[in-house]
């Protein structure tokens, strides 16, 4: 149940247009929000909602959010290039594509996400990062944290503790960044390492960095302590009340239309289908009667679907007609292990009883699913 004052403040922000003419100085205002949800899609959706619908003139907003284990890729990135999708499926780690640019990050509850919403003319990433640095130093004056030209935050001059991305819209902008407090670093490094070979793509690539958690440096720097310090610094800087409003991003009465944004962000079409065109050029090695043979694979993938499919297995191992069937049936299908399993099972049913063939087919199909 959102408190009455909270509902009011959103209505105020949505409908109120501060008249600029006649004011020498813009009235100070602003808002600090924190999500009660740990669902990456809901949080990204409400972020998008605020960007689209809230009037930020003279009233910037800071939004805190944390997610259950998820990998988040930038708008124009290729998830196959950026992370280990097979491992993510095994571990139940969500994959999300955000609307801002930048690289791939791993989120869990030990990571704080902060979004700084402003109008276009107040867009200033460095100002936001300096605010965070001041807040960190207010808690721990000895802490050596600095913003780089790439808008990262580095601890002790070498460990990345924060990465930045942003979006510019018609009138509003947002700058969001991460902050590593107590993230599972083992999970982070294994999930952000792609096992997929032979990918050629023009997608924007991430720049890997060595990371560290603030909690490892100083055990007093928990997520709660840091969010509190950053909120206090933001309130002081914008001369607003230091009050963090809790919001439920799934609440349609406060954020009408937010659930359709959640659906869009969760959709295969958005997450995978928005991957820039890419190709896969790789070889499978299969052991057959004590010799190795090679299966050459070439795929062209557009909008997440296979446009060109050229799988070449030696015909003494697998009949040419079966290979041709595989190639033609995969064209137009999603570059997705589930869809591929379904299609290949259908083909296999047309060759009942041939167990040797079945076993070879299964080997090939398993390898195919393994690159998706």
């Amino acid at each position, binding site marked *: 149940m959102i408190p009455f004052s909270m509902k009011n403040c959103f209505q105020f922000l949505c409908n109120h247009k501060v008249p600029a003419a006649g004011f020498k100085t813009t009235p100070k205002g602003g808002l600090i929000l924190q999500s009660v949800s740990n669902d990456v899609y809901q949080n990204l959706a409400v972020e998008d909602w605020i960007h689209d619908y809230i009037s930020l003139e003279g009233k910037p907003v800071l939004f805190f959010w944390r997610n259950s284990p998820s990998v988040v890729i930038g708008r124009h990135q290729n998830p196959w290039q950026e992370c280990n999708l097979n491992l993510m499926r095994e571990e139940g780690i969500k994959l999300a594509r955000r609307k*801002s640019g930048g690289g791939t990050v791993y989120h869990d509850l030990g990571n704080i996400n902060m979004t700084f919403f402003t109008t276009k003319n107040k867009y200033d990433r460095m100002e936001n990062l300096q605010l965070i640095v001041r807040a960190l130093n207010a808690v721990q004056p000895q802490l050596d944290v600095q913003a780089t030209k790439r808008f990262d935050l580095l601890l002790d001059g070498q460990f990345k503790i924060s990465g930045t991305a942003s979006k510019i819209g018609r009138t509003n902008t947002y700058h969001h960044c991460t902050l590593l407090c107590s993230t599972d670093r083992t999970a982070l490094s294994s999930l952000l390492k792609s096992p997929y070979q032979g990918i050629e793509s023009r997608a924007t690539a991430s720049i890997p960095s060595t990371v560290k958690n603030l909690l490892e440096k100083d055990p007093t720097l928990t997520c709660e302590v840091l969010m509190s310090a950053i909120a206090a610094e933001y309130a002081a800087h914008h001369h607003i009340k230091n009050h963090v409003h809790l919001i439920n991003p799934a609440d349609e009465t406060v954020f009408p239309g937010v659930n359709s944004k959640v659906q869009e962000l969760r959709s295969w079409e958005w997450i995978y289908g928005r991957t*820039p065109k890419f190709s896969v050029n790789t070889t499978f090695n299969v052991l057959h009667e004590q010799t190795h043979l090679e299966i050459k694979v070439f795929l062209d993938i557009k909008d997440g679907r296979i446009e060109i499919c050229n799988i070449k297995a030696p015909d003494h191992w697998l009949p040419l007609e079966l290979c041709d069937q595989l190639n033609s049936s995969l064209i137009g299908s999603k570059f997705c292990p589930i869809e591929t399993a379904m299609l290949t099972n259908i083909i296999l049913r047309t060759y009942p009883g041939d167990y040797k063939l079945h076993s070879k087919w299964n080997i090939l199909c398993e390898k195919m699913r393994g690159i998706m």
Partner: protein
Amino acid sequence: VRVISDRAGRGLLPALGPGPRCPLPLRPWRLQVGAVRSLHTGPALLSVRKFTEKHEWITTENGIGTVGISNFAQEALGDVVYFSLPEIGTKLKKQDEFGALESVKAASELYSPLSGEVTEVNEALAENPGLVNKSCYEDGWLIKMALSNPSELDERMSEEAYEKYLKSVEE
């Protein structure tokens, strides 16, 4: 004949010979904007560049508009690293979002300055998105579209009006 650009970087069509309204002899010469205007009494083959408040530019030729972003925009955005442009055949209304770009500054949406149907997309930008920074008025064009409502152009700013607008924005 070389295509000569004027100060604003506008490409002008090469003169292929004396046209029906051009009384001057056939020889290679340096074309200047003013000279072209005074020679043609009919509609220009290549219209003058118009600008929007969102820092896009448009030129038209036989009902096909070419859209790009202005020098102010490309400087403000910084190095562009990716373009997401529409499919040929996409129908756009004025102000519709038609794509996005990613630069070192941010991911930014691109809005259509006019209504029409996309007829061509600059494929060179896929390989070399930085082309828009190097040559925003020529090689770095974004899309071409068949205009469904050419009168929308009348609402757009001339180059002089755009320059005045920039000065007011920068204050």
